[in-house]
């Protein structure tokens, strides 16, 4: 059955849809967690600590967090590999272009591939910046996300990279969530309008929820 799914274009799209939905669920939780920055350093830093103690005493310190990280890495790899293979198939299937081209597709639809690449690069930068602290501007302090976030968003490039990535995320989710629903068989003539509204709504809320943090730091609401 695994072979049937991976070898079929429809099956591979299912892998993309499921891995995408896993990442989307994580992002919603991540976005809500980020908003704790508006309740002060104590609450945000305590939240960061709590993330490592979830599931205790059954789970050891950081076990739950690592479990989530492993699931996410699997999801990212599955999403990227299936996207790459499906894109190659799609490009091969249309070798000759039309002389007279129509620009019918929406911006979100047209930018799925480049958007995905931007997001992939951003994830690497984001982890090096705020998880490992490797490229962090200023002194990175483990378990002190409040100050780390302020440091990052006090640099112009930190803001630019983050906001570009989050806007790319919004467009990616806008077309991706709608497509995932269709791939998993949820599409129906009577339901597609609602699905589009949900996809646009989730994309907008996610973008707004993430963007509000650098904006708050830039405007001095959070300092």
């Amino acid at each position, binding site marked *: 059955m695994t072979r049937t799914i991976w070898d079929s274009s429809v099956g591979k799209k299912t892998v993309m849809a499921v891995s995408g939905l896993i990442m989307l669920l994580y992002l919603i939780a991540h976005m809500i967690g980020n908003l704790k920055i508006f309740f002060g350093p104590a609450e945000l830093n305590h939240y960061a600590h709590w993330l490592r103690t979830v599931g205790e005493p059954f789970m050891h310190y950081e076990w739950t967090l690592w479990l989530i990280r492993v699931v996410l890495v699997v999801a990212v790899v599955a999403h990227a590999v299936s996207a790459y293979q499906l894109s190659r198939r799609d490009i091969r299937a249309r070798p000759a272009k039309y002389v007279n081209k129509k620009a019918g597709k929406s911006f979100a639809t047209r930018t799925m591939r480049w958007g995905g690449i931007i997001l992939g690069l951003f994830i690497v930068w984001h982890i090096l910046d705020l998880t490992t602290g490797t490229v962090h501007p200023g002194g990175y302090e483990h378990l002190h996300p409040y100050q780390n976030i302020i440091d990052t968003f006090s640099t112009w490039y930190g803001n630019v990279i983050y906001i570009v990535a989050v806007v790319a995320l919004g467009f990616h989710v806008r077309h991706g969530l709608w497509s995932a629903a269709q791939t998993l068989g949820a599409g129906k*003539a009577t339901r597609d309008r609602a699905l589009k509204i949900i996809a646009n709504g989730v994309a907008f809320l996610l973008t707004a929820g993430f963007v509000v943090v650098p904006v708050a730091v830039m405007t001095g609401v959070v300092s």
Partner: protein
Amino acid sequence: MKLTLRVWRQQNADAEGAMSTYEVDNISSDMSFLEMLDTLNEELIVKGDDPVAFDHDCREGICGACSLVINGDAHGPERTTTCQLHMRSFKDGDTIDVEPWRAAAFPVVKDLVVDRSSFDRIIQSGGYISAPTGAAPEAHAAPVPKPDADYAFEHAECIGCGACVAACPNGSAMLFTSAKVNHLGVLPQGAPERETRVLDMVAQMDEEGFGGCTLTGECATACPKGIPLPSISAMNKEWLRATRKVSR
């Protein structure tokens, strides 16, 4: 009407093609697009030139033979087949681009004619029902609920012209395949092959080198018979269901 046509000319499958420009005059707005091309061909033949090759058959919009991308739209600006497109949709002095369907699975045979036998092979892989031959069975022997009959009819409208593939940026045959899968899968007569049909047809579709669906919706916009986009989602659902059932 006086028109400038830019038409894709290609001697054969292996030759390099290019757009050639032609002027046509005295075109009536009541002519169909194909009649306008007939006029051009008559002039070309009189001049001793090679006429433009294009597919056509019934010219009634029901056979699915005609296949032209006109100004970037499969079957042109109206939502119908090329044979049912009339010159009143264009203005005097217009320049019109005419190209063949573009997809790896639809190789150009000559000029505007493409080989669509990949569609035939998708049908052969599962687009049929196991029915006893002989006299027609009693109509009430297999009751079909009205909504199912309507759904089947909606999808049975597909004429297999390939406009969906031509319009799709990925050269995907998902809308075509889904029309066949949904048409037969919903009926009691199609039930015995419900699982194998969708699995085999999707596998054949992949085998032929069609692309995947990225939900741009171009196919359903181009379809002269109005096969709706959610049909693709319905086929995905059928495929997932069949994969679960068959592996059990």
